[in-house]
């Protein structure tokens, strides 16, 4: 069933004109309303970042020293759960206090091959220690295809302040839950101290705290 668009064999093109009016309206509109300019001149101008954005994972550390404040306890859950298996962890022999103050192992090696990583954030979901989070940094192109895209511990470690900067709401929730965990550990150590009948003695000092 083909519609006959012609009048006596001549195509009037009413619909085409109607469409062209629409195009003209759009063309003129971009001079009038700023809302219609949907693109920006990228390297100079940037659109406002969206808080939930995720690109690649990074490791959060508390305090100033990344090695001492690293939250990761090398439990290797993310390594197991990662769908493309791009995480490689080596566990330490000794222990250091973690974010809530319990003595834990730490990773002597923590590599993420971001040429394999697909930014699915399953590592973030499964991490019970709030140690791995998603970054928003996306300008990561490098000339070195293999070494440049295999990130080690130093490159992956970023401070809790940085985490607050990029994901403010999420970071605040994480800090609250970590503080609750720390309070629990503190209460326990206090109770132990009391039970040991060391009355009047100082409560053991709290280990490195999260900076917020």
């Amino acid at each position, binding site marked *: 069933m083909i519609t006959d*668009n012609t009048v006596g064999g001549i195509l009037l093109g009413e*619909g085409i004109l109607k469409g062209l009016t629409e195009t003209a309206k759009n063309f003129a509109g971009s001079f009038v309303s700023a809302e219609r300019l949907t693109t920006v001149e990228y390297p100079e101008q940037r659109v406002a970042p969206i808080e939930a954005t995720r690109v690649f994972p990074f490791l959060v550390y508390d305090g100033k020293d990344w090695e001492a404040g690293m939250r990761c306890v090398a439990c290797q*859950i993310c390594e197991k759960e990662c*769908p493309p298996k791009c995480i490689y962890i080596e566990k330490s022999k000794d222990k250091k206090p973690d974010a809530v103050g319990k003595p834990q192992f730490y990773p002597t090696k923590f590599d993420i091959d971001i040429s394999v990583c697909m930014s699915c954030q*399953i590592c973030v979901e499964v991490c019970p220690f709030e140690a791995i989070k998603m970054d928003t940094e996306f300008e990561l192109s490098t000339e070195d295809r293999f070494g440049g895209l295999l990130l080690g511990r130093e490159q992956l470690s970023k401070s809790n302040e940085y985490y607050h900067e990029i994901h403010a709401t999420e970071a605040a929730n994480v800090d609250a839950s970590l503080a609750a965990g720390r309070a629990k550990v503190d209460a326990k150590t206090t109770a132990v101290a009391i039970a040991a009948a060391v009355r009047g003695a100082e409560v053991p000092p709290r280990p490195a705290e999260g900076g917020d």
Partner: protein
Amino acid sequence: MTLTGFVQENKKVGWNRPPVIESDGEGELLEVAMGPHHPSTHGVFRMDVALDGERVIRLKPVFGYLHRNHEKIAEGTSFLGSMPYTDRLDYICSLTNNWAYALTVEKLTGQEVPERAEYLRVILGELTRVQNHASSIGFLIQEMGASGTPLMYAFREREKILDLFEGLTGSRMMCNYMRFGGCRVDASPAWLDATRKVVSGLPGFIDEVDRLLSSNEILMARTQGVGILRPELAVNAGVTGPMLRASGVNYDIRKVDGYGIYNRFNFRVPLGDHWDVYDRFMIRMLEMRESIRMLEQALREIPAGPVMDPKAKIRGFRPKPGEAYGRIEAPKGELGFYLISDGGPNPYRYRVRPPSLINLTILEDMCLGQNVADVVLIFGSVDIVLGEVDR
């Protein structure tokens, strides 16, 4: 090969399709390989076309260039681990892929989904449908030679929807948002307000596309009466989605199954009358309008509450042995997942029923006897994504 030779050979190999094409001459057939890098194919796909002059005598779709071993990989990773891979099936509509997979696993385990999560799923699913149909119309018109204008208008609107996806799920296309028993994160009131704002702007966009295209004489001349797919053939071939409804068959899984909470929504199913490319274009326009009505209703009624079943497990998820087939009405048609669990952490069998692949099997029947320039158009009206065809 001459035409008579071709027909004889066809009879020899026992093709049951009647020789639709009657030749008027004794000319040689010209065999053209359209693709795998033809700009119309949206990816890597080849059509081996045999031409008698301008007319298509035979067309053989060749695919598999983008095969990524999706099903076997999914049988090796955990149930949750396959979720991000489903994003990469139909990468235009990752959220509906997530939904279909989550629905199947929920069917397998019998998990309940909280009310708010169901509403969020409907909102995201319908937003996905709008952006898929808008860009598919844009691509179709671009394949006719309108270099860019309708496509860019569609992409301008799609951009807003992708920003919403990014604001909620963290990613524009690879959302990885649905979970077994709900959704990963809750939507903030600010996000819902932003969505309301975008949705209120969508009818204006569709009116604009309508004025721009629907009555365009060139579009009508190119698409009307081209690529006719008869309803009997469509049903027999298992075609689903807008393709099937453009052939006049009233079959929408949102109505038939009423999965999720779709039976609470009042929407109409547009049907085609002439079964041609123009109908497929028009069906997508009308479906967008229905989706917007559903979006408005969902955004009005969305309740407060949790978005995740509290009993749901993220780690150590092992469904009891059994099998399940879950399907949804994805923007391109019926998207189904078939899972067999043997009680282990990963599925024993994982199978995808992709709408794109099955809608594509009918391509030759629509193209026979048409001009070679219309093949591109008919192919565009099927609306496929190669990531889903080849998996």
